[in-house]
């Protein structure tokens, strides 16, 4: 039984490299994901991770090189542009914010895909690899990128923690106290774009959103204080990455997909069993108190989801 866990490490350097890459990708995603999640910007993160693709393609087409840093720059620029487009549409264009996200990211993504298939001669950027990653065959370039991005993000989050937490909690007070709210916001967007690109080979574009949202959501159920939430989110991400790698090796399936599934299972466990807020725990507590509201938990969980937001109207 013990061998099962030890054996993969002996199979070749790829297991070490892959796990390292996945872990290095998971940490900045989790950290940034906490702030995005708290600001109710999870779906903007979805947009940004998809938009990293046209960012890379644009960088390649304009500069002609596949130099990793050019890609990062391209992604950051396009990411910030996309988030400005989303906000512009939502604030000035009268588009509902969720529709704005959907429109911008699918449009950018489509441009990216078309530019990719039409403008780029095969090899370097391969659609499936870009979408799902190829962590088991991860290149040195990617490892270096991750090796720089992960500590950089950790450092930035640590340095700007006060501003990030204040802007996420109470933008009004932040503005009142002189915090440069717009800078923090676009800095966050840029960081997400850069992290997405750095993580491309490890987890791909489409699944990066999982590494951003799921750890944060899990940590929120378990924690009452922000510093702990950041730590738990990182732990969730790293654990998902490592266990996901194991499953990928044992079952010979996609590593990125396996990591996401493990993350999902962890979330479900927290959802049900978290000490303070877990659904089953609450239910058990109510039963212990002997009230008849125990059944209402199930009822309320399966009741109508209702609307995303109240009061739709045609603007």
């Amino acid at each position, binding site marked *: 039984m013990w061998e099962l866990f030890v054996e993969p490490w002996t199979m070749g350097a790829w297991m070490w490299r892959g796990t390292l890459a996945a872990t290095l990708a998971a940490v900045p995603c989790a950290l940034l994901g906490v702030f995005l999640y708290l600001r109710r910007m999870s*779906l903007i993160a979805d947009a940004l991770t998809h938009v990293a693709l046209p960012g890379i393609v644009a960088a390649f087409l304009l500069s002609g090189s596949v130099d990793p840093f050019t890609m990062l720059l391209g992604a950051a620029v396009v990411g910030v542009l996309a988030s400005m487009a989303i906000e512009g549409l939502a604030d000035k264009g009268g588009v509902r914010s969720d529709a704005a996200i959907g429109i911008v990211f699918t449009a950018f993504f489509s441009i990216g895909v078309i530019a990719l298939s039409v403008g780029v001669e095969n090899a370097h950027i391969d659609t499936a690899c870009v979408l799902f990653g190829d962590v088991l065959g991860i290149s040195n370039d990617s490892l270096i990128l991750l090796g720089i991005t992960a500590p950089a993000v950790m450092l930035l989050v640590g340095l700007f923690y006060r501003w990030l937490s204040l802007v996420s909690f109470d933008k009004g007070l932040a503005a009142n106290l002189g915090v440069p709210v717009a800078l923090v916001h676009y800095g966050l967007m840029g960081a997400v774009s850069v992290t997405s690109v750095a993580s491309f080979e490890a987890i791909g574009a489409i699944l990066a959103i999982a590494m951003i949202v799921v750890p944060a959501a899990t940590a929120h159920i378990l924690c009452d204080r922000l510093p702990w939430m950041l730590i738990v989110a990182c732990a969730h991400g790293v654990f998902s990455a490592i266990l996901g790698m194991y499953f990928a090796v044992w079952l010979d399936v996609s590593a990125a*997909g396996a990591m996401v599934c493990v993350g999902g299972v962890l979330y479900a466990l927290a959802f049900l069993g978290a000490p303070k807020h877990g659904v089953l725990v609450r239910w058990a507590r109510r039963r212990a108190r002997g009230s008849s509201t125990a059944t209402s938990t199930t009822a309320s969980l399966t009741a109508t989801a209702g609307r995303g937001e109240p009061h739709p109207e045609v603007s």
Partner: protein
Amino acid sequence: MSVANVINALEIAEISARSLEFFSFKYAFVARALTASILVGGLCGAVGTFLVLRRLSLMGDAAGHSTLPGICVAFLLAGSVSTLPIMAGALVSALLAAIAVGVITRGPRSRSDAAIGIVLSVFFGAGIVLLSYIQRVATTSYAGLDAMLLGNVAGISPEQLIVLGVVTVLLGGATLLYLRPLSISTFDPGFAASVGIPVRAIHYGLLGALSLSVVVSVQAVGVVLVSAMLIIPGASAVYWFKRMPGVLAAAVGIGALSGALGAWTSYLFEGVSTGPAMVLVATTFFLSSLAFGPRGGLLWRAVRRRRRQRAMLANVSVSATGVR
């Protein structure tokens, strides 16, 4: 296909020849493709309009991505790519995802946007795991992957087209039949409930219709971009009309046209999948609507703002002389 080829293809003669080929229905698959694109565009445009107006746009994204595990499981169980099992699998998967979003939103420390993000990505991740297993075990080609993700309407089979047609007729009929309760519950749910309209049932019905539409549209547009065909036509239509019949008609029109033009563009240029092509056409319609649409379009707003500013300045200068 390189950049040089693109430039060559832009030769007008070449384009005309291929277009004629396309529209003359020289090949049966082209006729099927065009019909399918129009149906998909119109259907998604109609269903999506309600999503957009109810701020459920990104449920469409979740529905699209969440079909993947269902498709894979159906393939493994049925052992083939025949239409009905695959679509059934996709449908079950999408419905489960919709339920999951609801459950998570009702749960502890929940946020509805995160719920969509979680369900979308975890379902898709599960789908990727199954897909990688299938690719190892079965002999499906890599091209199939691209088609499923980004759409390849040219590959639509007669069975798929029939199912698409049936679903379009059914949902289109249902929309027309229930147009009044649908519209009222969209614009004023409180009032709707008070006059006995079954708001909850409508909500579930809409999610079911969403799942169905997504399932039949995936072949044309692909899993990743089907949400665009749901959102963009409806979002564009509201710049032209205020009331529901007009908005719906415009959305269906824009969607169908985007579908047709997208399929045509995809046929013209070999490397271009239909999904992205349709989305870009639709986006062009959206941008035009945003700029020029009479109801809230930028051009009209600028005109009205200038008129109002002139009036306001006149007002202020008069009143400044005696407020307190």
